[in-house]
């Protein structure tokens, strides 16, 4: 079994667990594309850490790469996390508020 089949199998399994409709070719390939896009764009974005330090960049890219491959179907979980329930939304809103304030308060005084 090749690596590709392995990924597709795991995605199908994750989709069957929580999907409302039947698992089709289109939805599986969409999920696969989303997965690959997410991981690759994250990795490319992490390369920008080179402006801070080269070693940090290499370590971060390797860590994220391994973490992503080990927990492979990321997208179903991410989709479940971004659902439409109000509690989830307000939770992330308050989280974002704290992050933004802390970043501005601490980041501008120390960078």
């Amino acid at each position: 079994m090749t690596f590709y089949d392995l990924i597709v199998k795991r995605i199908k399994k994750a989709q069957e667990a929580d999907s409302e409709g039947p698992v089709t070719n289109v939805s599986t390939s969409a999920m696969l594309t989303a997965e690959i896009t997410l991981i690759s764009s994250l990795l490319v974005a992490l390369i920008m850490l080179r402006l801070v330090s080269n070693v940090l960049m290499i370590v971060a890219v390797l860590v994220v790469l391994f973490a992503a491959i080990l927990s492979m179907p990321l997208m179903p979980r991410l989709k479940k996390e971004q659902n439409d329930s109000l509690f989830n939304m307000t939770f992330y809103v308050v989280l974002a508020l704290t992050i933004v304030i802390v970043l501005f308060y601490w980041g501008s005084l120390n960078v």
Partner: protein
Amino acid sequence: MDLLIPLMVIVPIICALFLNLLHKKDRTIKAIAITLALILPLLPILASYGMHYFGGYAPLTENPTLSTGLPSLITGTALKTFHPAITYSFQGAQKLFIFILGLVAFLAIMVSLFETKRPSGVYGFMMFMGVASLTAILLTDDIFNFYVFFEIAALATVGVVLVSQVKGNYETALKYMILGGIASPLLLLGIALLLGVTGNVNITDIISSLKSGMVNPQNPVILMACGLIVFSWLYGSGLPPFHTIKSAIYSKALPHGAALLQAFSVFTFVALGIIILRIFSYLPISQMIILGVSLLAMILGITMALLQTDIKRMFGFLAVGELGYIGLGLGLGTAYGITAGLFQAVNEVLITAFLFIGFGTIYYQTGESDIRKLGGMMIKTPLVALLVLLAGFAMAGVPPLNAFQSKLMLIQASIQAGLPELGVIMILMSIVTFMTFMKAFHAVYMRPKPVELEIKNEKIPQATILALLVFLAVCILFGLFPHLVTGFLQTLSISLAGGMP
């Protein structure tokens, strides 16, 4: 022609109130609303550049007749440069943005009048009110006035969603209002902190007191204010964590309503982004946060769009994801990057409205927006299918169309700024965007038609096709002659980048 500047805000408000009077008379509403809406894009073309001082007067330095006889306590200090009025400034960039807003509003209102069975005055009222508040948001130089119209725009958005009669619209509207109830007082709190430190709400005055050293720019209170304003920027434009609610709002509005609502959020994004850049550009962290949030919006928006099965929700997420391009342009901080970002904003408003109205014909014909239940529409409407395909090409950035020019500029700007990784991500995201579009297009137009799919309305109104053709014409025009647009934006972006070309 200074008088036309306030008229740009007043005319849509008058239109809105007037439409509400003629509630029952369908034909008159149609004729009058279309003529009134036609004024919206015409006004900014006719108006000449300048400043307008609402309920006050020009600064004393520009107003020698008033300043004679005042005590030296006023004329001898910095007070003489302050703006004692609600200042509206109308320059090149505003001219372009208000023209585009007026065009999208005109076409959306025209399509809505022909596509809804019984055109209701309330729907038109909400749309015109939103246009008025967005015009004011783009024009104003006064941050409290900004807040007031920001709230009115949020209420108008809720109104557009409430009258749509799509299933689940009330729930989504209430969620949006609750989140707004948390976020918009925090914007006011940020304004209050700025006011407390600088004693002013006029943006030009705040900047001059920060620059001249009257106020310490590293004051923690100002950092806090910047954080709060950035947070409300996330809410106003639908960046993460607000991307789920914003895309839900688009999907619960009617397609023409959604076309207008996405224009509202793009212009709120641009206006508040410009304010943040103008006031806080001396903080390096503000640009970093703009870049980071834009990247996150792009990644989350576009990957989530791929997974949706509802066309309107899919394009809602795409609209949020495309905001990331504008943010990347603004966050780069160079004049070229900011021009590219603003150009992309103009293109995105046009193209997303084009797509919403184009795919809206499917909703109009079948009353269905789930791609699993759709198919075979190509035979019914080949012309619309072609136009929608062209819209998709425009969104992906295929050469003769407008987004190609702006995305090219964005990638060049990111390479010039020393961050080629951003260019790589932008290209990747363009490809995935196009794939998302093709997924919807294939499912709706090219698949064989499911048996149980009913066609409710055979004929698409001529007005809709006309609107789509106008959008296509503008897209091609801007694609062939990008200098038409960038010429208007250059002054603003050079001043935002700190005077460096």
